[in-house]
């Protein structure tokens, strides 16, 4: 009874984090290293999911990715893929909600890497990609992992956008938070609630502690 939501949550959060991570690294790179006209605007958009009411984010997801939506219709017609009311949609919602936290953590990692080292790598013959994979990325890896862990934790706890976009279908989209909510509506489910809440707190605390420890490993040459 309680394990289905836990397993689903882990599955959803894992997919969300895996897909969001490369995008977050790329966006963090642009924000950390490049100066361009829309810089502030991009930064603002990245942070939007942090401050918008999650229900609003969920609604916007429905509008765009629902069967009738612009991208949703395209996805269905071209690939036969539906996101609304599917666990993959839950992953999309969770990924978007965790994205700002990932970008913030990874950007700090970029900024901590001495660009002098990158210059040295360039004089030694490394290409742009080479500089990134051989110097920048290894040096900021703790920050990337910290960002992934934070994003994962946030994805685990996502409620508002998830329930709006994909509802809380048991076995399909009923993640831990939506399962807790559903259990609270029905009398006699207190035991399940307590277990799920306990698991939720443990996962969240664990993620925060891991992220802190990793962030501290970034400091120092």
């Amino acid at each position, binding site marked *: 009874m309680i394990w289905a939501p836990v397993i689903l949550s882990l599955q959803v959060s894992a997919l969300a984090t895996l897909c969001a991570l490369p995008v977050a690294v790329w966006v963090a790179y642009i924000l950390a290293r490049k100066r361009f006209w829309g810089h502030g605007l991009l930064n603002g958009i990245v942070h939007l999911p942090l401050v918008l009411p999650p229900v609003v984010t969920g609604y916007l997801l429905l509008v765009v990715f629902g069967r009738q939506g612009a991208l949703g219709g395209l996805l269905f017609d071209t690939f036969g893929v539906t996101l609304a009311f599917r666990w993959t949609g839950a992953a999309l919602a969770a990924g978007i909600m965790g994205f700002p936290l990932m970008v913030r953590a990874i950007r700090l990692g970029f900024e901590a890497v001495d660009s*002098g*080292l990158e210059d040295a*790598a360039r004089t030694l013959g*490394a290409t742009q990609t080479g500089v990134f994979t051989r110097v920048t990325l290894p040096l900021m890896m703790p920050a990337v992992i910290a960002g992934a862990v934070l994003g994962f934790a946030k994805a685990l706890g996502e409620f508002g956008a998830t329930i709006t976009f994909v509802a809380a279908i048991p076995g399909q989209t009923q993640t831990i938070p939506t399962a807790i909510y559903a259990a609270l509506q029905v009398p006699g489910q207190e035991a399940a609630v307590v277990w799920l809440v306990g698991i939720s707190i443990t996962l969240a605390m664990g993620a925060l502690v891991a992220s802190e420890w990793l962030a501290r490993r970034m400091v120092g040459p």
Partner: protein
Amino acid sequence: MVGAPDGGTVISVALQKRLGDFTLDVAFNAPRGVTAVFGPSGSGKTTLINALAGLVTPDTGRIVVGGRVLFDRHINLPPRHRALGYVFQDARLFPHLTVAKNLTFGGRHDHDKVIDLLGLGPLLDRRPAGLSGGEKQRVALGRALLSNPAMLLLDEPLAALDAPRKAEVLPYLERLRDEVGVPMIYVSHAMSEVTRIATHLVVLDAGRVVRHGPLGAVLADPASLPLMGPRGAGAVVMTTVQSHDAQDDLTHVTFDGGRICLPGRLGRLGSVLRVRIPAQDIILATRAPVDISARNILPVTVTTINQDQGAGVAVGLLAGQTPLLAQITRASLRDMDLSVGMQIFAIIKATAVAPNGDRV
């Protein structure tokens, strides 16, 4: 090799760059050997070397190395295509890699020879964090060399080191100069390093080249005196070690202007020894002095007399074919009635001559 004839121009530089209030506008040629770029802080040395490396783009100009155009109106090669090795003041070793991996980051050209030359064998498995400043710079040198560069750029590589570490690294730089044929551009504000390492000198002041040419000629040029002062200016002479006097602990060296004796046992017999004679350490005499403590008295001819700056007068001399530079006071000039072409004597205090060779 020190003393070997020029291989012709290898590096040709002309560039202009504006940075705020400061304008860099330089042009010079550098042959094979070590070309030192000397100047005070803020004279544009680092901007110049970064432009050579491609880390900074000049506004206009042309950079050619070994016949290859690195930069001009239509071309601006990125650093990785310029075939250069850059040794930074702060070494910039990659902290996440071992010394061995750092060294081979840009290539493995002449791997064993370079490791040997710089004595890096014992350091290979260590991490950069555990190395001393001198060791870091030697690794940085090795890393730059292993990438098989056509040109080596060194931006004040010894500036961050204390005196003992400097003394530790300098012989390796000399070995590089003498045994590896790669032309080097060596940026420094320390004249002691320049006189020891360089074969050619470019003097920068406020973004402009004020003097350039072979080291000895530039430093012995009377016009260099106001730039570098009487301690900085002064001939650097390539002498040959003739004999060691064990009893009196002296070394005798010769050059085409005569014989000089120096305290201590210096260099191997027959080897080349650089001898520096600062302008303030030459006393002039119209007659051969007698009964004085100085042992180095050379017959010289007066070639130029420059009175442009203050109380000091720059007197250019010729000892054999070698230019020397002396600074005397205006009053002495008047009293001695010196004129161009006069044959006089230069008294060089033996302790004042700064030898730049390895002690044997």
